């Protein structure tokens, strides 16, 4: 088997295998590397946009009392910050990494369905264009929190909710098509000899993530469609006056929402499982158990959703079931953390930027996991619910979890993408600023949360003032250091020490067998995997 790369668009005058020229290259492309780059850039732009909103939030919370923005606008900021970071920054970043790396890792000529791949990408700017444009309308953008609970998002929603709903539909279509592409690529385009249990873990975790996406994005679509019908066509899904139930919204939303949090972390698990062995110069400890642990986490993610709803009034048996099921997730997650630590054990370790981010990932994600266990205890959750403790928890799994995973991946594979080594000193500076910034920003939130500070409120009691000021300073540090990351990436694209095909001693995998930068078309004839 080999690949026919169709060059009809510019055939006849040359036979070069490079990309087309000009801006239309990006609009019309079917190349997995082009599309991967576009996903990554889009994700980074959204990260900065969503991050700016976080800066507004933290500026308002710098001191108690109403400081900078109106409460109405504050609500729009918290809502849009969440939506943009989840759907616009983290998810597209992982899809971008999948696009770039999966074909390289399994020896495929491209993604299985290259045109659909481009469609998946371009739907995202359209969806976020629609969503962001609502901020400039008279009634303002969505203001009901990123979890958009009914009836706040139905009966009491601003008009922009309709565009929010269709924006979510577009993101869903994009995610489902992207996930189908990943599954088809992994199941069908592996090089001869690459059996499932020889696949790199990043490929495994993405296979499972793609399954989760295909299973739950349609449920989210169903959820927002019921909202749409309640708002515009008089149905009563979420209105008890007609026999429905507002809690039904929460069940449907969190049936999507809980697998969604694993969608945002599993690919990071995979990337870290590639990076730690490379810099510990040892093979990954417990490959098979990593695969089974990932699959177990994915399975469990479907039967724990109501732990987000302990205080809403579900029966005691429900509270107990969801509490114990949630705690069960600590087992496969513990297996993973144990394996990462064991991989490093007596390794010949060096701490380049990818490794720094990966080690920080293991430590800080574990902290986020522990606060998750605290939240899983139903009776204790009555105290924590809707406080800053929850905000601290999910920022600890998302920032040093998902986002540090993305940074680690970016530094790890930047030499492969650009053909240049990034500036190690700047990258380490970026790491330490991010590390200190995010801990300063989010650790004090545990304390104010336990003391009872509610989330999503622009003002707070005086007793929380000191910790909030520290949080804000940390957030500004973290935010500013991301501009440094932008600079590092641009610098690396424009020049730097030429990268060899395999810039990291201990790295393994097919992606290091092609030159750096990776040629426009790779593995037109699949490699033989022994």
């Amino acid at each position, binding site marked *: 088997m080999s690949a026919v790369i169709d060059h009809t668009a510019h055939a006849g005058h040359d036979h070069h295998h490079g990309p087309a020229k000009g801006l239309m290259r990006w609009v019309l492309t079917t190349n997995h590397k082009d599309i991967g780059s576009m996903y990554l850039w889009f994700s980074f732009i959204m990260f900065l946009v969503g991050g700016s909103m976080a800066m507004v939030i933290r500026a308002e919370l710098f001191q108690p009392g109403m400081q900078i923005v109106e409460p109405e606008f504050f609500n729009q900021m918290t809502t849009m910050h969440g939506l943009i970071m989840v759907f616009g920054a983290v998810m597209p970043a992982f899809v971008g990494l999948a696009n770039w790396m999966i074909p390289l890792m399994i020896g495929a000529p491209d993604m299985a369905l290259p045109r659909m791949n481009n469609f998946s990408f*371009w739907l995202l700017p359209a969806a976020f264009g629609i969503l962001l444009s609502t901020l400039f309308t008279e009634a303002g953008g969505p203001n009901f929190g990123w979890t958009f609970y009914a009836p706040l998002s139905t009966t009491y929603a601003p008009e922009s909710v309709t565009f929010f709903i269709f924006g979510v539909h577009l993101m869903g279509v994009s995610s489902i098509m992207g996930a189908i592409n990943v599954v088809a690529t992994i199941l069908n385009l592996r090089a001869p000899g690459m059996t499932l249990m020889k696949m790199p873990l990043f490929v495994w975790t993405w296979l499972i993530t793609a399954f989760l996406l295909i299973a739950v994005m349609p449920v989210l679509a169903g959820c927002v469609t019921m909202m749409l019908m309640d708002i515009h066509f008089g149905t009563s899904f979420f209105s008890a006056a007609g026999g429905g139930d507002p809690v039904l919204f929460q069940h449907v939303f969190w049936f999507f929402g809980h697998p969604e949090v694993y969608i945002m972390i599993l690919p990071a698990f995979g990337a870290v499982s590639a990076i730690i062995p490379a810099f510990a110069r040892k093979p990954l400890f417990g490959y098979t158990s990593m695969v089974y642990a990932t699959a177990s986490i994915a399975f469990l993610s479907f039967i724990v959703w109501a732990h987000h709803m302990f205080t809403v009034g579900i029966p005691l048996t429900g509270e107990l079931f969801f509490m114990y099921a949630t705690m069960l997730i600590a087992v496969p997650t513990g297996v993973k953390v144990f394996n990462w630590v064991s991989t490093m054990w007596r390794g010949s370790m060096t701490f380049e930027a990818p490794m720094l981010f990966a080690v920080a990932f293991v430590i800080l994600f574990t902290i986020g996991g522990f606060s998750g266990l605290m939240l899983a205890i139903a009776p204790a959750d009555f105290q924590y619910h809707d406080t800053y403790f929850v905000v601290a928890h999910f920022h600890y799994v998302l920032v040093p979890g998902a986002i540090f995973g993305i940074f680690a991946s970016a530094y790890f594979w930047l030499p492969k993408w650009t053909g240049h080594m990034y500036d190690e000193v700047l990258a380490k500076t970026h790491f330490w600023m991010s590390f200190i910034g995010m801990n300063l920003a989010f650790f004090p939130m545990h304390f104010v949360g336990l003391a009872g500070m509610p989330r999503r409120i622009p003002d707070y009691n005086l007793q929380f003032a000191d910790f909030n000021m520290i949080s804000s300073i940390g957030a500004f540090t973290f935010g500013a250091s991301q501009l440094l990351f932008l600079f590092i990436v641009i610098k690396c694209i424009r020049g730097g020490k030429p990268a060899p095909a395999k810039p990291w001693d201990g790295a393994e995998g097919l992606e290091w067998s092609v030159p750096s930068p990776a040629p426009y078309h790779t593995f037109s004839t699949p490699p033989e995997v022994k």
Partner: protein
Amino acid sequence: MSQTHEQYYVPAQSKWPIIATIGLSTTLYGLGAWFNDLSAERAESNGPLIMFVGALFLAYMLHGWFADVIRESRGGLYSAQMDRSFRWGMSWFIFSEVMFFVAFFGALFYVRTISGPWLGGEGDKGVTNMLWEGFEFTWPLLSNPDNKLFPPPSAVIDAWQLPLINTILLVTSSFTVTFAHHALKKNKRGALKAWLAVTLVLAVAFLALQVEEYIFAYQELGLTLGSGIYGATFFMLTGFHGAHVTMGAIILAVMLVRIMKGHFDAEQHFGFEAASWYWHFVDVVWIGLFIFVYVL
């Protein structure tokens, strides 16, 4: 992967993805503007016009994109491996559709077995009955907690009349499309065309009866989208199913046209097979609907 000389086709640049994006997002934007104007009772709306323009883009894209795929397929560019990519793609697409319906079935089961009885004063959270004291939960729900806000239906559709006929029509059509597939595999083109045409007739008959049922529900029974949770779940489930039947029928019609033009042979016909998979899927969903929406 055993075939060593096969080639995997990676298409050149294509304008269809961006046209599809423009079409889909414009259509949905127009729809959103229109819905907002309708609900705010504004006299004028440019929503339908925007939607129409978007739909034109979509129609152009669907025609052109599928034409490209058909041309490439008939040009022999697709290997057996490509065929497997399409098979995986279609299978997972149908799975995603199943999960879309799971959301609505889940809502139906939740209301019927959990939140409904609570609202009626039974079970763990029966205390919620204090919201509308005296409200009794029955299924079908012929009296809502707030009958002014959500006027209830006087009766609901009888499962053993039109829905039974529709079940027979759709199940039969699943058989006829399979007969057509067998005919195609044996290269009996006449039988293929005939069975596919019969399938299409059954599909159209199903849709016509469904429209008839909706008219009856609205005009005679007062069963509407706004008549409480029964109407909401009834129309959501049957409505989205009907939309899928419409889509499936259009796909089958396209397949019939292609067969008339001499496309497909006994070995290579995944386009047709995918259409028949989709058709079986809408059939299975209907059986779920018949049991849980109409009968029980």
